């Protein structure tokens, strides 16, 4: 029984230690600014096409589905409102983070995993560099910056997708659609819409790094680490999202 628990407990301990070191390194020299920029380019710019595509179609499909429900109450004009609230609060942050997790947690895990099995991580330590400082902290910092930005873009593109449906299929005027979209949002929506991707960024980057750095057993191990990273990151995002939503919803209900 205890042996069965040993693995997960040690893995959790490793993850917490890694998180602690990665955050502590933000305030310690040397800083690898070049690596942060490079990762921002890979994670942010690289993920932009899929974020744009999924954002657009998510908004469009939501407008389509919601308009049917709203039509029952004669409230089709409120489509923009529903689209913007659901996108900004939930779907924007969660879908963007899941996509970036699928693309980058796996990428990070396989890159670091390959470095681990070819002893490049050991070589780095032997050559006077802390691999957490050089590899983990830049990925974490870069993701924490770009994920909220990607979410903003995704939210906006989603609203635009909703607008296309609203304008061409539901025959709403641009004024109707955009004003209801705009007015629906409160500061708390925007706050949670940006806090969530910021929190998820730590999961996306650190889970990828964690599985990458624990890779053993050659190329097969790299594949295993990659799969595990995506699964663990996606599930963790959804679980954390539930708790964050709970905090925000009770906060609003309480206030």
């Amino acid at each position: 029984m205890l042996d069965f628990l040993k693995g997960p407990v040690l893995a959790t301990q490793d993850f917490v230690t890694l998180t602690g070191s990665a955050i502590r390194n933000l305030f310690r020299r040397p800083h690898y600014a070049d690596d942060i920029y490079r990762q921002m380019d890979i994670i942010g710019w690289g993920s932009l096409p899929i974020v744009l595509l999924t954002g657009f179609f998510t908004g469009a499909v939501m407008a389509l589905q919601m308009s049917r429900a709203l039509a029952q109450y004669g409230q089709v004009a409120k489509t923009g409102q529903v689209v913007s609230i659901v996108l900004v609060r939930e779907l924007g942050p969660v879908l963007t983070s899941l996509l970036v997790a699928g693309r980058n947690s796996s990428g990070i895990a396989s890159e670091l995993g390959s470095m681990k099995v070819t002893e490049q991580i050991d070589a780095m330590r032997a050559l006077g560099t802390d691999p957490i400082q050089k590899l983990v902290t830049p990925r974490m910092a870069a993701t924490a910056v770009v994920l909220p930005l990607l979410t903003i873009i995704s939210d906006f593109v989603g609203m635009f997708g909703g607008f296309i449906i609203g304008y061409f299929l539901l025959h709403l005027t641009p004024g109707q659609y955009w004003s209801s979209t705009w007015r629906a949002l409160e500061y708390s929506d925007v706050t949670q819409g940006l806090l969530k991707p910021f929190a998820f960024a730590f999961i996306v980057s650190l889970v990828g790094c964690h599985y990458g750095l624990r890779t053993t057993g050659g190329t097969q191990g790299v594949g295993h680490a990659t799969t595990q990273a995506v699964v663990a990151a996606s599930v963790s995002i959804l679980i954390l999202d539930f708790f964050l939503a709970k905090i925000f919803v009770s906060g609003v209900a309480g206030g």
Partner: protein
Amino acid sequence: MNKDASTPVLRFDKVSVAFDDAVALQDVSFEVSHGGSRIILGAAGSGKTTLLKASLGLVRPQSGRVFLFGHDISRMREEELFGLRSQVGMLFQESALFDSLTVAENVAYPLLNQRAIQCPADQVLPKVKEALRFVELEQTLEKFPSELSGGMRRRAAIARAIVTEPPLLLYDSPTAGLDPITATTIIALIVKERDLASTTTLMVTHRYQDGHLLANYHYSPANGGLQPARGVNEPVPGRTKFLVLEEGRLVFEGSQSELEASTDPYVAKFVKRTG
């Protein structure tokens, strides 16, 4: 950081290392003094690589102590180790060149990242070129490791290990997976580095002839190749020793003639293999 000439460069004192439940090293003790060479033989999984990694503090012993240049590194924090590691060059088994960097950037890496080494910016490129010239790879500066052959990668990795002129060099299976001609070239480079820079050398290998070359040959600057040491410059007795590891335990330590005379069936296996 060398305390004095009599302090062993590296000393293992009853070192044991285990990964989970698997024992990698068990009660290993030996020492090597300045200018000495140790050739470490052993079957796959006998703990050879772990021994080299423990010498650098990349792997921590569960018990026992490792002294590097007289400093006990077994309990040192990673940050404290960086200073000592800058005096050690290591060649990893599969070269471990950073594949996102060019050969020149790889070789420059220790000069730019070892905090204890203050290399002026204008000195980096000349030193990189010098190290690559030493391994006869000056023409590959801008190539990526993936564009090089196995032997060239090994040579580039040797250049990276020696560019900071460390007094101690660790080689992990430098000839593994190479054809015999390339393997001999690599050993010749190791002998050349040992003789020209009088470095202390630890070499892990599973090929007895690698050890034989290291123990009995000298680099001859006159013809740029290896020459038998006998008669020319007899090696100081005890300078080169062979260690044999069996399942984490050190089962033999001694000179080449003692190794050849050994009646232990496991130890004898490594000698006979050369034919």
